[in-house]
């Protein structure tokens, strides 16, 4: 398991209160019975942890499945490393 995936699993389990063992990469947050307010908190914690801005309903990104979240974070974090923000 990549460290990004590991962290995202931790965040999902902590914010939603579901058992970490139930989380699978293929599940969507909806499959995991995660309510919308918990879902936006998960996105916020991911953004805050990785210092990135997660896309909002952008058709080019999957931010609904766990696997999609991991891929989005890995892509945005790599971009950030390539172009570090000024200051």
């Amino acid at each position, binding site marked *: 398991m990549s460290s990004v995936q590991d962290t995202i699993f931790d965040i999902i389990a902590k914010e939603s209160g579901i058992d970490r063992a139930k989380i699978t990469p293929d599940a969507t947050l909806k499959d995991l019975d995660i309510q919308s307010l918990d879902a936006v908190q998960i*996105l916020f914690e991911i953004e805050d942890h990785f210092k990135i801005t997660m896309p*909002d*309903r952008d058709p080019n990104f999957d931010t609904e499945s766990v696997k999609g979240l991991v891929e989005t974070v890995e892509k945005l974090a790599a971009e950030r490393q390539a172009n570090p923000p000024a200051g």
Partner: protein
Amino acid sequence: MHRVVITGMGAVTPLGHSAPATWAALREGRSGIGPITALPRESLRFGIAAEVQGFDPLAHFDEKKLILLDRVSQLALVAAREAIRQAGIDFARDELGENTAVVIGTGIGGENTNDEASRRMYAENNPRLHPLTIVRLMANAPACQISIEHGLRGPSFATVSACASANHAIAQAFALVRSGVADAAVTGGTEACLTMGAVRAWEAMRVLADDTCRPFSKQRRGLVLGEGAAVFVLETLERAQARGATILAELAGVGMSADAGDIVFPSEKGAAMAMQRALRDGGLAPEAVDYVNAHGTGTPANDPTETRAIRRTFGAHADALAVSSTKSMHGHALGAAGAIELVATIGALRDGVVPPTANFIDPDPECDLDYVPNTAREKGVRAALSNSFAFGGLNAVLALRRA
């Protein structure tokens, strides 16, 4: 118990700086939503809002008075002046002002003042805050400023219930006048919430639209924040008739409820209870209602839930109703929303024209009522409901009858 009528209305909205200008835009289906100008757009995720543009405070207040007023109070005061002028009411006569109430709703209060104070303290490391910070930012400031300006000494306070604040305010004012506790009331809602902090906080909830507000439409993508104020004069039918006032509409009843459920996800039952109570309180049969001004935020959750609540309340008559969300044009002004929507509802009752739901593209199978898409419709409106449902599950509905 007195019958209560509305004899004056005033508004400062993204659609115009008066109630007639606002209503004219609503009839035309003109939208006040556009790229945000008050904030640096590039630092926002989407950067659209319904702003009150071209409002010059110095055209309305001298500098000495202005220093006391957050934008939220400025908008309310200008709307109140218009409402009182239209009502043609003299509060000095027969000591009417001695027992006229002022009840003004706001969701946030003096947000611009708060933002400015935070900026000085945290961004500029300047520990000295302006000594009038508190009197500007307190949520009751708009009510107090109206009371002071017009010498109104009846029960006066603010109501705070997020997006239902204005309807809760109008409901309280109504109860005061109907019961005789107050002789008349000045009431409505005001909001000036377009600061970087507030907009960012809304962005974080991921409920804002990135294009525009399309209530009940399949392509809806969320709400669009707005700002503004609308204020009304309420008095008893007897007084209005005795002084020969023009009656804009009768405020027949109000209905309030709490979902006691989720903090953000709306409940069909809670919304329906508020509508049912408003009908009962106003002595209206469901079949007597021709128009519902919907809460209609344009979020994925509100619109289908509100649709089901309307069906639950009206039964088969739901299909005969015209239902529209004017937030598609004036945006979501939070604590002022219900007041601005009352301008729309009174317009529909008086002119027999139902304002449209603008920006409508395709119907959503989950939203299956007649939403008057994109173009206003001529239709006699005998009675109407105006819905407001707040985060926290707080619902307030006004029932109005044609004068």
